[in-house]
């Protein structure tokens, strides 16, 4: 697996330093994108969705500080997200009723500090160990915190959680943060800052040593580093950013409850990070956007979306272990060799039957769903704007034919695409 990020970009040997604009092009583009997105998508739903995505991006990146950067698999990361939220909501309520002179944009800091404090506390326990033991400790801590949350009603508000009103606090240069657009910009700003901060951390001595711990903890000890200290710092920092994300979630939704700290949330952040790609800094960003979108959209498209999520998961780990970002990063050498035009046709050639196979599969799944669970709604279903009848053999036969034929063709074409890729990379290597 190639890890583009860890390759030194400025080796200080014979490299000329590019200008400010060129060096920061990505960041400027990101800032512009965040600024302009609401002009492209101005519906309230789009704003809510983007706000949620921004929060999840921070959350997923904070998780990747553990999984991708330090090699720690945690099953309880949502604990810090949730705790950050609870700290924020309490301070927000206190500030609202006590007229404290703190404007809304500063409240995610409270969440971050809460996440950091508990990251330090739980990290002290969990990071003494690594590997599976670490994973199991985080699982245990997650269960403990969620269960205790239902007992400690004053702080966690029981089942209902705690609500707040973000417009109650001091206004910020005249902005009251009632409209979703203002909230979007608040989240976008924090999102930008957090992405930048977390990216910067990967480029510090600590960030590099965390990579070393991920790759080979034993050797890291022999170059002078205490691996459990490295894990501890990574855990605490990731708690900090998860807490910020939790605070932003409170600002966005004005409610937080114990379920947000639970196993489902922890699982979904793993999903985001892994699907996006753990080996690349931007991977979790892609994953957070995609999974959030799927969470909101997939459930409208089909009732049995968990089945698709499960299949997506299995498919990803089996066929695309590097995640989406890994796939993209694989194209870097091809692009560097200017051979993209040689491979793209093959990709498209593979993609077409691949999509056909997926369509076939979804026809089969949806038809059997209509046939079984939704039987009382009659056998009629509409799929891809085509009316189908689950009791007739047509959709079944069509599904099988599409899935099998598409699958076989895909596998052939995939081999061709693979060859084309390797050829392009090899040629690039010679050139």
């Amino acid at each position, binding site marked *: 697996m190639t890890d583009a990020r860890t390759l030194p970009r400025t080796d200080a040997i014979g490299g000329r330093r590019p200008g400010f604009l060129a060096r920061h092009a990505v960041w400027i583009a990101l800032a512009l994108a965040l600024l302009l997105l609401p002009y492209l998508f101005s*519906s309230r*739903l789009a704003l809510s969705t983007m706000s949620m995505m921004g929060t999840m991006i921070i959350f997923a990146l904070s998780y990747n500080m553990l999984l991708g950067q330090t090699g720690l698999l945690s099953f309880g990361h949502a604990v810090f997200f949730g705790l950050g939220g609870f700290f924020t909501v309490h301070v927000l309520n206190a500030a609202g009723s006590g007229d404290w002179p703190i404007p809304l944009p500063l409240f995610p800091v409270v969440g971050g500090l809460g996440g950091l404090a508990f990251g330090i506390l739980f990290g002290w326990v969990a990071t003494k160990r690594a590997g599976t033991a670490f994973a199991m400790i985080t699982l245990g801590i997650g269960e403990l915190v969620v269960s205790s949350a239902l007992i400690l009603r004053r702080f966690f508000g029981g*089942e*209902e959680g705690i609500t707040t009103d973000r417009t109650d606090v001091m206004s910020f240069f005249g902005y009251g943060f009632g409209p979703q657009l203002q909230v979007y910009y608040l989240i976008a700003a924090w999102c930008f800052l957090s992405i930048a901060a977390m990216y910067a951390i990967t480029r510090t001595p600590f960030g590099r040593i965390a990579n070393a711990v991920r790759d080979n903890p034993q050797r890291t000890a022999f170059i002078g580093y205490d691996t459990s200290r490295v894990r501890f710092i990574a855990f605490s920092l990731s708690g900090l950013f998860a807490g910020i994300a939790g605070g932003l979630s409170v600002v966005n939704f004005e*409610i937080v409850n114990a379920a947000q700290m639970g196993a489902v949330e922890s699982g979904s952040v793993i999903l985001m990070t892994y699907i996006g790609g753990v080996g690349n800094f*931007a991977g979790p960003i892609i994953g957070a956007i995609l999974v959030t979108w799927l969470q909101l959209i997939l459930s409208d498209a089909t009732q049995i979306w968990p089945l698709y999520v499960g299949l997506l998961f299995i498919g990803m780990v089996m066929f695309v272990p590097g995640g989406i970002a890994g796939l993209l990063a694989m194209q870097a050498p091809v692009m560097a060799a200017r051979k993209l035009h040689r491979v793209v046709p093959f990709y498209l050639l593979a993609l077409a039957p691949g999509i056909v196979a997926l369509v076939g599969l979804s026809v089969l799944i949806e038809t059997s769903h209509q046939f079984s669970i939704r039987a009382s709604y009659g056998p009629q279903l509409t799929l891809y704007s085509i009316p189908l009848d689950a009791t007739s053999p047509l959709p079944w036969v069509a599904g099988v034919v599409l899935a099998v034929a598409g699958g076989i063709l895909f596998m052939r074409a995939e081999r061709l695409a693979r060859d084309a890729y390797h050829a392009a990379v090899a040629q690039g290597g010679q050139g």
Partner: protein
Amino acid sequence: MRTLIGSSALTLALLGATALSALAQDTLKIGYVDPLSGGGASIGQIGMNQLNFIADEINAKGGVNGRKVEIVGYDNQTNPQISLVQVQKAIDEGIQVIVQGNGSSVAVAVSDFVTKYNDRNPGANVVHLNYAAIDPVLTNEKCSYWHFTWDASADIKMEALTNFIKEKEDLKKVYLIAQDYSFGHAVAGAAKRMLTEKRPDVEIVGEEYHPLVKITDFSPYVAKIQASGADTIITGNWGQDLALLIKAAGQAGLDVDWYTFYAGGAGAPTAIKQAGLENRVYQINEGINNQGYGPAEERAGALMQRFSDAPIYYPRMFNMMDMVFKAMVEAGSEDPGDFVPKLEGMKLDSFAAGDEGFMRADDHQFFQPLYISTLGALEEGQKFDEEHTGWGWKMAASVPTESTLLPTKCDMKRP
């Protein structure tokens, strides 16, 4: 970092796809925000089925004010945050009537969101119709002009139940068992308070709180109940926490009477039948199948025939939609801004037996006659059994509307 740009492109593509799904507006759309996938789906789907059934009924009669009704399901995965985005989505699609019921946490979040949304967007007028969440805060501390509830709150149900129990001479020792969360505590607390007041001679031999939906083996609890010598159990448990408890009790041969809120819920009748607790389990709700009231039997029969794989329904949902449609017709408008005033104080012959109930304007709580029933082998004239067990609910007592009234702490803010 090149992938950063890629991810921005992805966002654009995804959001573009979302935008396309906006549709033209010609039907009256009602948003149903409840779990339609995952663990809560079996319950959420029941409400969805029933709403669709009601929509088909009214559409067959020409719709509401000439508009066809369409039910749009939004899967909230029983998660408050997802619920809010789904409500947002519904609003963006032009929906002003949100139906929701499962989970007090979700109900509080939705009610709070809808209220703030209407505050911040004058003229928006979105209403939250709640058919199942019965945490008393919803009609007390956190009551809202834009929230209506059709299920009797925990206090109301317990008031009625204890009025029934106090007549039972042979009742000596009561055991309270509840799920360890706000609703469970509300049920057990009310039971304790009301029993001590109404039957000081009854001894409460145990008060047990167990974690919510986490217990697989209830036999330790049953052993404890057995050891306490209780002759009666009062519980607010629902779902698997009730089914597993009853099953474990049946296996241990626990000889007690049960007073419950949710023995009619999915899975419980099967467990009661397996445990052989014929006519030992009571439930209190706003109506059962076998009340012998013609209009209800006809309507419920048609519903259950259509959804024979999950032949369950909520009488209160009929009450709710009948009232809402009536209010819309009276107001001549489907905008909640217009029909909400009509709902306040509205009277209705309730679904189960035609007795009158009313929507109290002070807290938007629907007060209705309640019925206490037990599950046993079907008798002559009873039409409906539960979950294909051959056992059905039969009436034990009815509680008139005026005996269910309780004061409220609601300080309603009206626009």
